């Protein structure tokens, strides 16, 4: 980079450039409210997940039918935060789970997770995904809502080298860099989001 920029602003710009939706939030409570709001008003939560309205093979259709309710998956949250999310979800008639992701492989509506670090120059989230539940929640979900503390954002991957070395040296470990939604351009180079993973990535930048 030629000039040094405010990493939070740079992060915001770069993440938006790869179609992530970035919102600043002042507290965890606000983040939870955002996730519930996305579920509610933006109608992310729906019985029929993406692709299930297309004409599918019998096997494809059968998996669609295993999803019987609206689901938010939120593994790895501190207990009080999960309780808050769960209470809000229950009011809305939405199931909120923190484990048992393999029971929901047909699809979940929202995956709500915390993020370890952000890399500003690429708009990348670094997520310790050692937990299989967390890994699946961030892949199976239609929308991924991720909470990143602003103080955890570094300008480049080089500025994060020590932390990344520490994360990826743990045995066993599974570390994910996530930049924008799941994407493909394999058909005629036309960009399409949500080929295997989330169709939308919402990043909540938490004040701290």
């Amino acid at each position, binding site marked *: *980079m*030629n000039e040094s920029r405010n990493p939070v602003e740079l992060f915001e710009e*770069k993440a938006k450039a*790869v179609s992530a939706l970035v919102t600043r939030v002042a507290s965890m409570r606000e983040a939870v409210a955002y996730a519930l709001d996305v579920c509610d008003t933006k109608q992310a939560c729906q019985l029929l997940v*993406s*692709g299930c309205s*297309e*004409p*599918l*093979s019998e*096997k*494809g259709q*059968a*998996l*669609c039918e295993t999803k019987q309710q609206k689901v938010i998956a939120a593994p790895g949250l501190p207990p009080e935060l999960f309780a808050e999310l769960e209470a809000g979800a229950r009011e809305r008639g939405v199931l909120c789970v923190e484990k048992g992701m*393999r029971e929901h*492989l*047909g*699809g979940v509506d929202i995956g709500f997770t915390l993020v370890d670090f952000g890399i500003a*120059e*690429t708009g*990348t989230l670094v997520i310790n995904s*050692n*937990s*299989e539940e967390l890994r699946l929640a961030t*892949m199976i979900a239609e929308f991924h809502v991720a909470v990143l503390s602003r103080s955890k954002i570094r300008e480049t*991957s*080089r500025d994060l*080298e020590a932390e*990344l*070395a520490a*994360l*990826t*040296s*743990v*045995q*066993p*470990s*599974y*570390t*994910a*860099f*996530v*930049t*924008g*939604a*799941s*994407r*493909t*351009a*394999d*058909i*005629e*180079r*036309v960009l*399409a989001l*949500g*080929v*295997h*993973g989330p169709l939308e990535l919402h990043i909540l930048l938490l004040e701290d």
Partner: protein
Amino acid sequence: MQHAKNLKEYRAELREALGDEFLRQAMDKFARFYPGARARAFAGMDVDGLIHEIAEAKDKAAARMDELYEAFKAKAEAAGVVVHLARTAREANEIIAAIAKENEVKRIVKSKSMTAEEIHLNHHLEAEGYEVTETDLGEWIIQLRGEGPTHMVMPAIHLSRYQVADLFSEVTHQKQEVDIEKLVKVARRELRPRYIEAEMGISGANMAVVETGAIGIVTNEGNARLVTTLPRVHVALMGLDKLTPTLAEGLRVLRVLPRNATGQAISSYVTWINGRNECASSPDGKKIMHIVFLDNGRSALARDPLFSQVLRCVRCGACANVCPVYRLVGGHRYGHIYIGAIGLILTYFFHGRDKAKNLVQNCINCGACKAVCAAGIDLPMLIKEIHARILDEEGHSAPSTLLAAVLKNRKLFHTLLRSAKLAQKPLASGGYIRHLPMLLAKDQGFRTLPAIAAKPFRDLWPRIRPETKSPRYRVGLFSGCVQDFVYPEQCVAAVNVVAGKGAALDFPLDQSCCGLPVVMMGEIEAAREVARQNIRALDPGKYDYILTLCASCASHLKHGYLKLLGDDPAWAVKVRQFADKVIDFSSFAHDVLKLGPEDFRKDGGSVTYHAPCHLCRGLGVKDAPRDLLRDAGLDYKPSEEEEVCCGFGGTFSMKFPELSAELLAKKLEHAEATGAQTLVTDCPGCVMQLRGGLEKKGSSMRVKHMAEILAQQIK
């Protein structure tokens, strides 16, 4: 995939590809999109510095491949991973099949791996009775069609949405709409059950980091994350060249790979996996994990002083993205498994001479791949070297041996050129050969070819030799054969421009062809002999500059000679001195003589420019010619894709006239679209191609060498 048995069959395949309208459009669209996207992705970064660091680090890693392997193995095995080393493709296939068997696997899901393509892993596993599903969308599509990839990172770039809709209709037994968004969602839902059912996932890997013990996988779709999470067994397959000593080096590759591949700052997902992670479907709750390293000739390559650099390749596919030939014919005709420039090379080492022998001739030597390579691999040079080796292995063809013999003997060569002038007499009219006998000019109808000049430059020289009093520079002029025997007027023009500006010119008559044509034919010994003759003729001790008006000659004299003679103790110093003094005409006029607006007349009309490959990339000269045009009182109108090859490529245009014609047509279309009166370039080969094409189509646009347009404008 390569099936052609000989060049004739290969050419027939190329013609077929040229007729594929969709392919042509798709490739063209991408070729136009890519350079800008790459430039934007690297904006503000020191790209050359990064590439240099990657090259250096990869070379060091290749040199200690065995040690890195042992260290990685120890680290990964401490975390419960089983690490295998497969010496051959066969061994790798058997190891992976044995892992499947021992774990009672029936169904396998795969994420994208070029290494798996290299060893035909799917064929082997399917023959052993396993059900294998590719999960990368492009790979799944080509798997369903029973094809190989046509691009390293965009395997299905050759297919249309209509073809995909038909294919998915078959797979789902449901009529699918021709709508990309919807087709992608269908794939999402159809592949999801496959991940869930599979007992084993196979992935590739972009790096294996020795200091951490983790492997790194770069994807956009996220399929690798599901492949490595849901099934109880994970096998990662990668070449030994993916061993990376430190995470810092891995992160550096990551800064370049996606930017160079698709113009993305980073791919959507990068996944680092270290050891046996949580896995609920495994009996003990932990993933059964195997890593298979493939040698398949890599450790032999690592020990080769010349070819070890191919192990630097990070598989970004950029060499295909910018290749003008790939752009015309697509990946199925421009590689076997690996495609693009690196594919031509890897095919020889991984899949054998038979698959590579036609491919390596289909390089036009424009250098676009070398200029864009993420690891600074000298791809065109290696392709030519392989061509030469195949000739040595299979025997040189009669025309090639004949050309080599003739070029080695300057007097014979020049006598033949002079007698060619006599032979063509009844055929030439107005300077163009109108009716070349078919024998000489097979499929050359797309352009007129020039006649041999009445008097070569060497015969004109004694008469026009200028006297320069108290010269500032002593300059040896190297004409090259085309300007000596076909376009002597270009050299005369150069003499007129240079003479009054303080340069004392000399034109030693013992100089001969620069030797590039024999390099292109794979005749390396003849190329060395010709190089020695020219260095003897133009002794660098006598001159400040060795000036040439031919971009191809200049690039070959400057870089090619060093490669040919640099390691020969008897010639090393002289060839280095020689190379240091070689300069192209535009740089000499602009940078040395410092010609500026005050030296030229105004109102010289409108011009556009074609940048010869060997000037803009071969010598890195980009600004001097364009500045000269503006300074020389000309209205310079830049054209689109000014630095893309015109399709000449010397012997290439004789061997692959269909491809040459297509490249020329595109070039002329861009030039004419500027509305300029004159097309200027810096190389007689390009002049021959461009002028021949314009003449053939009856265009009013004129072609001039830079020396000619400057001679016209100089005061």
